[in-house]
């Protein structure tokens, strides 16, 4: 029996009459890393934003832990254990690093100290920057903060929208390692990436999305060796 923390069935999403997502179905097994790759404008962010409740779905089902969460407010969805690390990091620039972490745990009533310590262990640089305004951090540090902030709500499922965007290769590798570490702690991950090569390497399973539809799926290794994926997304790199 498969155990999916999240499964999407036949999801349609439109922006003012223009379909961005056209009947997508995908499954995210509990405890795994699943990646969603695809070109610009394919609809990847739209899918994540719909799961998070920021965008209204037209039709379809989003089953999270055996319940359809379509139509729930973002705050309810976050409370149930899903968080989104948004595209472009979106840290709160005039809150301090520590405040950004605290606001990540906004819905929690218990003490946040342990989790803050945990995030500081994952990203020691954030500890040194604790009192600095998040707007003054470098791009890589902001991405770490965005991930750390998402962890503060103790999510069961983290969705990450292009965490590698605009970062140096070394930093990107660091972020990918952290994603693996977080996953080993038991958090399920749905990773959207343009950097297909890196994403497929760490993912257990992957989906390829093109203009609003899933065109291909398979394990990370299968997709890495797929000729069409190689041609379209891995370029000359291999």
């Amino acid at each position, binding site marked *: 029996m498969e155990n999916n923390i999240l499964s999407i069935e036949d999801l349609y999403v439109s922006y003012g009459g223009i379909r961005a997502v056209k009947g997508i179905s995908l499954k995210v097994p509990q405890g795994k890393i699943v990646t969603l790759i695809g070109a610009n404008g394919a609809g990847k962010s739209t899918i994540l934003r719909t799961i998070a409740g920021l965008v209204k779905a037209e039709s379809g089902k989003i089953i999270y832990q055996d319940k359809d969460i379509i139509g729930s407010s973002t705050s309810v969805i976050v409370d149930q254990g899903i968080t989104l690390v*948004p595209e472009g990091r979106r840290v709160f620039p005039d809150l301090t690093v520590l405040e950004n972490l605290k606001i*990540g745990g906004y819905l929690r009533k218990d003490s946040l100290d342990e989790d803050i310590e945990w995030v500081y262990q994952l990203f020691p640089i954030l500890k040194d920057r604790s009192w600095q305004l998040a707007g003054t951090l470098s791009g890589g540090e902001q991405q770490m903060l965005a991930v750390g*902030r998402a962890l503060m709500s103790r999510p069961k499922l983290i969705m990450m929208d292009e965490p590698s965007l605009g970062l140096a290769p070394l930093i990107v590798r660091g972020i990918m390692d952290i994603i693996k570490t977080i996953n080993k702690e038991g958090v399920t991950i749905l990773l959207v990436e343009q950097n297909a090569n890196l994403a497929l390497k760490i993912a257990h399973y992957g989906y390829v999305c093109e203009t609003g539809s899933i065109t291909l799926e398979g394990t990370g290794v299968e997709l890495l060796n797929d000729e069409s994926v190689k041609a379209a997304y891995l370029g000359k790199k291999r």
Partner: protein
Amino acid sequence: MSLTTFLQHSLTGISLGGSYALIAIGYTMVYGILRLINFAHGDIFMMAGYFMIFAMASLPWAISIPLVIILTVILGVSIERIAYKPLRTAPRMSIMISAIGVSYLLQNLATYLFTALPRAYPEIPFLKKIFRIGDLSASLVTLITPILTIILVFCLLFLINKTKSGMAMRAVSKDFETAQLMGIKLNNTISYTFLIGSFLAAVGSILYFTDRMSVTPFSGTLPGLKCFVAAVLGGIGSIPGAVVGGFLIGICETFLVAFGYSTFSDAFTFILLIVILLFRPTGLFGEKIIDKV
């Protein structure tokens, strides 16, 4: 002008400025969170005046004051829920027009219900007590206004900078979507902002009208505009800015009147607005106005 008259006018100006500051904060906070100039804010302040007249008609002041504050808060929050909330995703201009509509609605409603004739504002005995320092004399309200203003501003700054709901307000004012991703309920945070703004407007109204004696349906218009200018002068979105702006305008207005330019004193406020917009659109304490994504 003798030293005593100078001090006397300063005191009056500071006091008027205190009421202005309390109202200006409402403009600046709502702008900060919704990028909306809440044109109805001055009329909420006017309605608070009428609430006080009716409350004091049958109740002692100690009950009337909290009652007026509660009614004003309900009015302010309801306006947001009814007239602004449905336009959350509409273009900014629509919600501005809605605000102008609410402003006229309140003025006309007040005219219809209470007629356009000035109604005497009730006296709160202890606020009217005269005190003397040397040759200076003033009613207690003149002294209490700036002190109360400063105390309320400190409480407000504490609330915004040190509490969880304050953190949520700061987050929402920067980025609606990401704030929601933290689990923050937008509508609650926005209501909370209107609650605070209306609360301060109610307090400002009591202090202001106690010194003015009467209320008409249009009593909110000019003070409302002046307080809006105060908020722009200080840098709209900035609370300390609104406070400094409120005091500056209150003091300038009082001195212009004192020097015999009372006909010019209202025009002065608007000349000031034009000058700020031309030379320093971000105001004294304002940050760069960045449009929200």
